[in-house]
């Protein structure tokens, strides 16, 4: 698996990007965005005809945009939410994204949405189930779906596959692409005791379309995917390896809580350039003893513009 293959489903390397967040709307409407591209949380714009969509329209006119979802619930045993997929398609018609991504997870069942990215038992049954749904989704969206490995905090005893094996087989069965979140590999590797480098060496590199980097939190007995810190050295090291193996793919910094001012955000993602030159920043994993730390923060999606 160590040979370089840059197929990426024919999708381009967009360079360095950041997530479009409401905190930066005002700045972005008045200043050059500096970064090469943006990722949006799809659900935040699907039924939004307010200022957020106005900013999105402006950004989409000057930079490539990628749509990243958190509610597709690819792994749920509930029926596919066709209304959701239609709305996603409508947004795609508006944004014209370079690609559309979501997560290898489920968000709920029995019509409940926990708004979390829940792990699947990695079994043959799950594989058939997810592959079937990915194929249906790709038919509706009329484009390949790009799936991200989530951070996970539990494993099922019934799992018979490693996550990298599951993803490789899913790619074979569906032709989907991968969004490799190297922070999530780091987090899950710590939590489940696997070698994150081995994981990254054993996914199908030619299907990796995008990489996520982010800062997690060390909660002593486990790591949490908090997206609220600078990227630590260990994650940059995995990023460096992933870029070597993929031949270079689009890079996106996720920062969703304790969000810094825009120039600081840009400075953080620009560190990727130094990493690729071999200069790894010396940043420890943030530690906390607080009990109310949140993974996958989503409240940044809820912001109005008042007068």
């Amino acid at each position, binding site marked *: 698996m160590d040979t370089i293959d840059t197929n990426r489903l024919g999708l381009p390397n967009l360079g360095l990007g950041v997530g479009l967040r409401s905190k930066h709307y005002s700045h972005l409407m008045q200043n050059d965005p500096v970064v090469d591209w943006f990722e949006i949380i799809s*659900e*935040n714009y*699907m*039924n*939004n*005809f*307010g*200022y*957020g969509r*106005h900013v999105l329209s402006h950004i989409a006119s000057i930079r490539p945009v990628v749509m990243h979802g958190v*509610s597709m*619930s690819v792994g*749920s*045993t509930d029926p596919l*939410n066709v209304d959701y997929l239609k709305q996603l398609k409508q947004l795609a018609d508006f944004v014209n994204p370079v690609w559309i991504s979501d997560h290898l997870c*489920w*968000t*709920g*069942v*029995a*019509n*409940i*949405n*926990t*708004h*979390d990215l*829940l792990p*699947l*038992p990695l*079994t043959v*049954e*799950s594989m058939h*189930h997810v592959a079937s749904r990915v194929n249906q989704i790709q038919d509706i969206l009329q484009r390949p779906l790009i799936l991200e490995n989530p951070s996970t*905090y*539990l*494993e*099922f*005893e*019934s*799992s018979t596959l490693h996550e990298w094996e599951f993803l490789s087989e899913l790619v074979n069965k569906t032709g989907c692409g991968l969004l490799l979140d190297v922070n999530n590999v780091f987090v899950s590797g710590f*939590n*489940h*005791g696997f070698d994150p480098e081995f994981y990254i060496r054993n996914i199908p590199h030619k299907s990796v379309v995008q990489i996520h980097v982010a800062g997690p939190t060390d909660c002593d*007995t*486990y790591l*949490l995917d908090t997206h609220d810190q600078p990227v630590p050295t260990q994650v940059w090291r995995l990023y460096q390896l992933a870029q070597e193996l993929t031949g270079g793919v689009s890079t996106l910094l996720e920062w969703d809580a304790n969000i810094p001012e825009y120039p600081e955000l840009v400075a953080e993602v620009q560190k990727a350039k130094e990493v690729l030159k071999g200069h790894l920043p010396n940043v420890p994993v943030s530690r906390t003893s607080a009990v*109310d730390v*949140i*993974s*996958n*923060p*989503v*409240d940044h*999606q*809820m*912001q*109005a*513009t*008042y*007068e």
Partner: protein
Amino acid sequence: MSELTTLQKWLTSIIVRPGMLDDKIRLADEHYQLKNDKVIRPSLRLSSKQKIEIYSKGYILRLLECMEAEYPALNKLLGQNLFHTFVKAYLVQLPPNSPDLYNLGEAFPAFLKGSQPQTNNLDIDRPMYDLPVDLAMFERCIAEVSRIEGLENKVEEVGDNQMPYLFNTTAIYTSPCLKLLNLQFPLVDFVQHVYNELEPETPVKQDSFVCICRKNYRVNFHELETWQWHFLNSLQNKPNYMAAVMDTASVCSIATDTIMADLILWVPVAISLGYVYLK
């Protein structure tokens, strides 16, 4: 039921159910005929239950943050502990079922209203129960107005000369993102203080006619005079301007001529704030 379906229902029931973790897991184990320590692989650092707890704790904390973001003034009024108590009860009664987080708080005002004790209007504690409900309705409207379709990119600015409407009142319509609230408390100052991170004064009970609207992507909210509120309300529901004038005159017991004269002065203001527009 497939094994995957059973596992998903088992874990979801633990995550969304209220109560102590051990009780929630025991009930789910019994109901789905599973044993948590045979379902979730323990590690050297964490037991099966501790791993499940990361998800069940995260579920509540994450949604509490979302509700705090949508209802900051209500959070301020109630204090965080009481606000969290209501939100947690709300999530138990109505677990989220939409992929859109903006739907999470949609039924919260009705939930608060339904949670009120049955008292009569003369009860001295009545305002204590009514005020949070009014405030929740107010903040929910703000959230909705910030996202629904408005007039941006659809209506050209009339500029300084807004008098042509006088010659063609059939062209006057209310904005699609105009929301009108008849409240029991004047809340505009309270909400503005909270949003500007100032210390608000708790309002005293008094009929309040509020308009929440958006223009050029900025949400504004103002207290209206009674007749202004009724005029906008009628214009939203009546077939035309004159029918709205007649209705307002009737409801407010004001002469039609007086309403029409006042509108000559006020409609330009309503246009500038985006309440109404000329088609």
